[in-house]
């Protein structure tokens, strides 16, 4: 969401503003002197500039001022704002796209991805009952046993709580895990590797990773909350969890989700996304400066990759404790930042009680969406390990190397007993060594590099065979891998086979640049890393750690701390220099850039495991002529599953580059779009559900209507009584009864929803003459006039009455749905075109409650309650208003009729409305008074041919089309819309006119929207349409059905027979005058 700087109120969310189109398009001084073409140019033609563009905005939900902004239409950046009436500034500068500071050391290997954000709780906001930020165990792995039931659980390693065993069910079998496990780690501990079958080919698939990038182990949770398609690697284990594997696709729950979801806005000087080594170092530099800092990380505990490698545990713990204690720092654990939008507006979802299972407190939201506006952002989002496209690379037991490292050190789980490690870079070696130390038999490290350097020596020293210049050419096994075939890279001879139940793969590292890219950042190809890294961005964003392509731990820490310091310094705070650990420098040999590996003939080489897309599929795409990764993505669906290609995107790009024989740097990546990980609709909807989905506006009399059985109609956000059925009545019977009371006796209606605008100032009359088509300034104080407003194109925009309260004061009423639009319209003209007019407009819609008292007996009822009011027609004529007490309540009584009957509108304070209403009900009882609703109001007005703007009109209708020439002044030199009435188009004889329609069978009802045709037999299509029904009712007064319609040349067709296709019939109808009841107007005075 853009942050738009209101020239008065300062930066506010875009949602508070209305767009007003191109600026500096002044209303012509003398529209009458313009040719049709010149006038049309003013009305309809606007520039369509690429780049800086001056446009009008209104701070509609704020100070209601119109102003001008120069916005770059290609970047959406607001370059400057200035007040209405001011000149456009000569030059305005775009925000420069700044490069990421170059890291001290370029790409060096380190390990794993670095935390991709995370959790709930938070300083001072965690409500009681929610498990907060307490760190999980310290990694010593001490605790009770239970390993007999978890054969792959390491006896000591891991950060799991061995004293808190957890029982869960997967595919119908009960298992045990520990608090601190994910569903995936607990399954692995129990020897369950396969977690589903693939979506297209039905091949068995196993747990492939330990994080959000998981493509295979996407499972269905059945209880306690049904939820589809969750990566088992991200589901924290809790007691009572019931999950099932999926054939690549989940099922939506059939019952409503009973949990609460909510949202909260947050603001900060610095948001740090990811609390791995880089994010923690950045936070440490900023923590005590006083700057408002938010740290968000998707894991239950801070540390990121350090949790997986078990490095620097003390520093992680100390830093986390310092952050939790820092008053200006908010740490959000279990919180995934999933969207990065304009002006550093970021959305995150915090999983607050999911991990508590059925123990989750009911009054705490299960998930919370954070809407964060940050002055600066550091993205320390880590990197994802990439796989390789080799033959049969999808069997259960194939796993990303660093993920296995995480399973061993963080979860105390051995993902297999006999492992082969296949790598193109250094990062898999520490994993191999760690697994060997943990008791896994590492059969071989297969490295595509001919000379892997020091790391290979260390592996050999540990007794691990290293095959240099080799690659994996195939695998065996069904439910689990059983053997791995290797051969010299690129050759088929010299094969060797290893028995193994685990094949670890590392094809290199992809910085998690998703958020950076969403923020508008550009990526560049890094030759050394062989992947895409963040480059330039217009927003105040810095990327730190492996997300920036820096892979050695010491470099990551230094870069994070420097980024944190730079960010808060830029906001005027003084950073501290945190004491950073100094990890030992590690040997480094450059990675080899490999995407595809030749292997066994006809064996599939998968690129996107979740979509079952293979190298052959991509070859078909390039063979069909695709030359862009955006096209191959859509052709093959690679990267479109709910993992959004986190492990496969760059791999697919590399494969396509090879197929096309081009460099991957020339291909680029596909577009990263929010959300980074899937977010449920329930979380996005938050509390805007049910009764709070949309505001309900009610009048002061609402409760009375409810108590008296009214059914309600939505008019905009208002709830208006529709009709008041009595026992057993249907709508038709109730409306006929209500209409009869209004026409024959007396009835009353709550008309409080009409928009009301107080227009004050010496130029009020001049102003209203410009707005309305008819003359308003000649209205006498004490009198009322009906008026119509048009847009400059001459089309009717709104109508209502104007009451003259004083020489310089009018009260304007608008239609219920248009109140805000009319006020905005007035302000727009006053502020942008006619600032010299001394007039002000103020909404008073809710200052007054209005009751319409209608019917031949209304005078008696009013007279009995207003002893000081002379109610006789000659004393209180039509279209006059009086101030008096009604039922002892100060009131302004207007003689206005929207029904053709003698009628009054009584305006009182809404605080007194119920007393007035009850008094009218009582005083009217002898005359049979009843309340009526909007349906009856519509019937009564339609019988008189009064149009409803927005129902009978649609923005293409002039007052003349409505037969209201009388409301268009010929005396006024100009008013909005006048020039358009002289356009050829508005004078066409075949324009649609408002007419009445009488079905020849008086009982036949024409649905609104019914088309009208000339002939009794439908001709072959296209059938010429003459118009359509806009309103249709049954009339008590006419004793028949009738309708209003907009019909081409309708006034000239009065008396003609037309046909209305209703269902499979052509209903004959007669065109009539729209005024069907009391055409002489005899009933108006009672």
């Amino acid at each position: 969401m853009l942050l738009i700087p209101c020239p008065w109120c300062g930066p506010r969310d875009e949602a508070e503003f209305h767009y007003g189109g191109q600026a500096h398009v002044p209303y012509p001084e003398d529209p009458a002197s313009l040719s049709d073409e010149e006038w049309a140019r003013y009305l309809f033609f606007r520039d369509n500039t690429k780049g800086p563009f001056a446009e009008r905005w209104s701070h509609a939900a704020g100070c209601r001022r119109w102003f001008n902004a120069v916005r770059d239409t290609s970047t959406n950046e607001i370059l400057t704002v200035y007040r209405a009436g001011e000149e456009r500034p000569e030059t305005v500068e775009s925000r420069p796209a700044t490069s990421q500071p170059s890291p001290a050391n370029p790409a060096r290997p380190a390990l794993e991805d670095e935390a991709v954000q995370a959790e709930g709780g938070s300083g001072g906001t965690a409500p009681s009952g929610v498990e907060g930020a307490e760190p999980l165990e310290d990694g010593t792995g001490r605790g009770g046993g239970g390993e007999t039931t978890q054969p792959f659980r390491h006896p000591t390693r891991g950060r799991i709580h061995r004293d808190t065993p957890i029982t869960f069910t997967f595919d119908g079998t009960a298992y045990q895990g520990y608090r601190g496990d994910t569903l995936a780690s607990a399954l692995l501990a129990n020897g369950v590797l396969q977690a589903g079958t693939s979506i297209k080919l039905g091949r068995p698939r196993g747990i492939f990773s330990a994080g959000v990038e998981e493509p295979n182990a996407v499972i269905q949770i059945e209880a306690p909350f049904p939820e589809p398609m969750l990566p088992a690697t991200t589901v924290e284990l809790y007691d009572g969890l019931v999950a099932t594997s999926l054939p690549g696709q989940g099922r939506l729950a059939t019952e409503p989700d009973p949990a609460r979801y909510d949202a909260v806005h947050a603001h900060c000087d610095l948001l740090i996304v990811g609390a791995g080594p880089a994010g923690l170092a950045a936070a440490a530099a900023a923590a005590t400066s006083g700057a408002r800092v938010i740290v968000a990380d998707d894991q239950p505990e801070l540390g990121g990759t350090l949790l997986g490698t078990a490095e620097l545990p003390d520093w992680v713990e100390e830093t986390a404790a310092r952050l939790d204690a820092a008053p200006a720092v908010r740490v959000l654990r279990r919180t995934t930042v999933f969207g990065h939008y304009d002006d550093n507006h970021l959305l995150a979802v915090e999983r607050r009680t999911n991990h508590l299972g059925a123990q989750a407190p009911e009054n705490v939201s299960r998930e919370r969406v954070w809407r964060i506006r940050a002055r600066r952002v550091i993205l320390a989002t880590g990197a994802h390990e990439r796989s390789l496209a080799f033959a049969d690379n999808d069997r259960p037991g194939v796993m990303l190397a660093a993920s296995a490292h995480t399973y061993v050190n963080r979860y105390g789980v051995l993902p297999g007993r006999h492992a082969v490690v296949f790598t193109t870079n250094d990062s898999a070696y520490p994993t191999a060594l760690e697994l060997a130390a943990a008791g896994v038999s590492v059969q071989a490290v297969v490295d595509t590099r001919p000379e892997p350097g020091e790391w290979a020596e260390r592996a050999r020293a540990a007794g691990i065979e290293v095959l240099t210049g080799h690659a994996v050419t195939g695998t065996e096994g069904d439910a689990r891998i059983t053997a791995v075939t290797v051969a010299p890279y690129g050759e088929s001879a010299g094969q060797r086979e290893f028995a193994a139940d685990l094949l670890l793969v590392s094809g290199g590292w992809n910085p998690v640049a998703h958020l950076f890219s969403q923020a508008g950042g550009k990526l560049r190809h890094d030759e050394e890393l062989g992947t895409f890294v963040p480059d330039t961005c217009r927003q105040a964003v810095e990327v730190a750690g492996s997300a920036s392509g820096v892979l050695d731990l010491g470099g990551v820490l230094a870069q994070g701390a420097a980024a944190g310091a730079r960010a808060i310094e830029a906001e005027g705070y003084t950073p501290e220099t945190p004491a950073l650990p100094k990890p030992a420098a590690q040997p480094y040999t450059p990675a080899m850039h490999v995407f595809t590996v030749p292997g066994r003939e006809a064996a599939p080489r998968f690129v996107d495991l979740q979509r079952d897309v293979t190298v052959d599929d991509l070859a078909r795409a390039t063979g069909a002529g695709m030359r862009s990764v955006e096209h191959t993505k859509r052709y093959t669906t690679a990267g479109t599953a709910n993992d959004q290609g986190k492990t496969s995107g760059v791999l697919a790009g590399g494969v396509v580059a090879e197929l096309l024989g081009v460099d991957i740097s020339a291909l680029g990546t596909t577009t990263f779009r929010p959300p980074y990980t899937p977010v449920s609709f329930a979380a996005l909807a938050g509390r805007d559900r049910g009764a709070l989905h949309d505001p309900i506006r009610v009048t002061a009399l609402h409760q009375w209507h409810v108590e008296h059985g009214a059914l309600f109609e939505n008019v905009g956000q208002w709830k208006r009584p529709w009709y008041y059925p009595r026992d057993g009545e249907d709508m038709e019977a109730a409306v006929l009864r209500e209409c009869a009371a209004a026409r024959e006796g007396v009835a009353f209606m709550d008309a409080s929803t009409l928009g009301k605008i107080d227009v004050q100032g010496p130029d009020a009359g001049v102003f209203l003459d410009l707005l309305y088509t008819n003359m308003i300034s000649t209205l006498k104080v004490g009198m009322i006039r009906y008026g119509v407003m048009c847009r400059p194109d001459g089309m009717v925009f709104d109508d209502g009455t104007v009451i003259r309260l004083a020489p310089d004061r009018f009260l304007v009423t608008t239609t219920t749905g248009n109140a805000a639009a009319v006020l905005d319209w007035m302000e727009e003209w006053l502020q942008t075109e006619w600032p010299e007019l001394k007039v002000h407009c103020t909404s008073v819609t809710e200052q007054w409650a209005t009751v319409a008292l209608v019917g031949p007996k209304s005078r008696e009822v009013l007279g009995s309650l207003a002893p000081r009011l002379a109610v006789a027609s000659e004393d209180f004529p039509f279209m006059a208003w009086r101030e008096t007490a009604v039922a002892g309540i100060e009131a302004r009584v207007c003689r206005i009729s929207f029904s053709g009957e003698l009628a009054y509108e009584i305006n009182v304070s809404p605080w007194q409305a119920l007393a007035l209403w009850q008094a009218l009900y009582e005083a009217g009882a002898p005359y049979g008074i009843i309340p009526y609703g909007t349906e009856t109001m519509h019937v009564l007005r339609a019988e008189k041919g009064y149009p409803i703007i927005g129902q009978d009109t649609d923005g293409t209708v002039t007052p003349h089309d409505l037969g209201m020439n009388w409301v268009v002044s010929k005396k006024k030199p100009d008013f909005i819309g006048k020039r358009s009435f002289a356009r050829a188009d508005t004078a066409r004889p075949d324009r649609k006119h408002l007419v009445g329609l009488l079905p020849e069978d008086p009982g036949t009802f024409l649905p609104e929207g019914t088309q009208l045709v000339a002939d009794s037999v439908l001709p072959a299509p296209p059938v010429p349409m003459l118009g359509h029904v806009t309103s249709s009712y049954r009339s008590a007064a006419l004793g028949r059905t009738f309708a209003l319609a907009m019909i081409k040349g309708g006034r000239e067709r009065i008396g003609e027979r037309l046909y209305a296709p209703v269902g499979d019939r052509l209903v004959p109808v007669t065109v009539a005058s729209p005024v069907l009841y009391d055409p002489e107007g005899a009933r108006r005075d009672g």
Partner: protein
Amino acid sequence: MADTALAAPPRSPLAHAADRLAAATRASRGAIRLAELPFLTQVNVRLDAKGAAADAVGLALGLQLPLEPDTVVRAGESTALWLGPDEWLLVGPPGNERGLESRIREAAGDEPVSVTDVSAQRTTLLVTGSRARDLLAHGCPLDLHPRAFEAGRCAQTTLGRTQVVLVSRDEPRAGFWVLVRSSFAGYLADWLLDAATEYV
């Protein structure tokens, strides 16, 4: 008839919600206090801030109209809210709207001013307590941190799905006023009570 109606007490937009607001306030044990402040006098004033009327009106009211956007000036029981460069809302104890209007018109003399009684247009919700900011942050996009929205500031903005005038009161522990259009008041009360679920 007329006499009985006269005796009928005025009914505020949130009269029906008073019990629920009070119950939530009690249950939160000080975290949240919610209450309607009904019937406050509210008068909308429009005049040229640079013209002669501005000073004259300020003098007559004993209250300088604030010129800095989104700020409040308080004098005794009366408060003037900046709503726009030529627009203010005067808020005071109930029943004072006529007096205020005539004083302003008198002070302005021949200078053009617009004065409109809008006391019933909006009602006022008091939102205070230690978690008041957290409660409002569930639906208000403004930065309500004391550094950004200190006591004495006001803003026309949105809360939940409705427009409000938000005032950070400048008395100790006074919390916020939330002025809301009367027709939206029921929605907003429901919204606030629902948002408070976690704090009660």
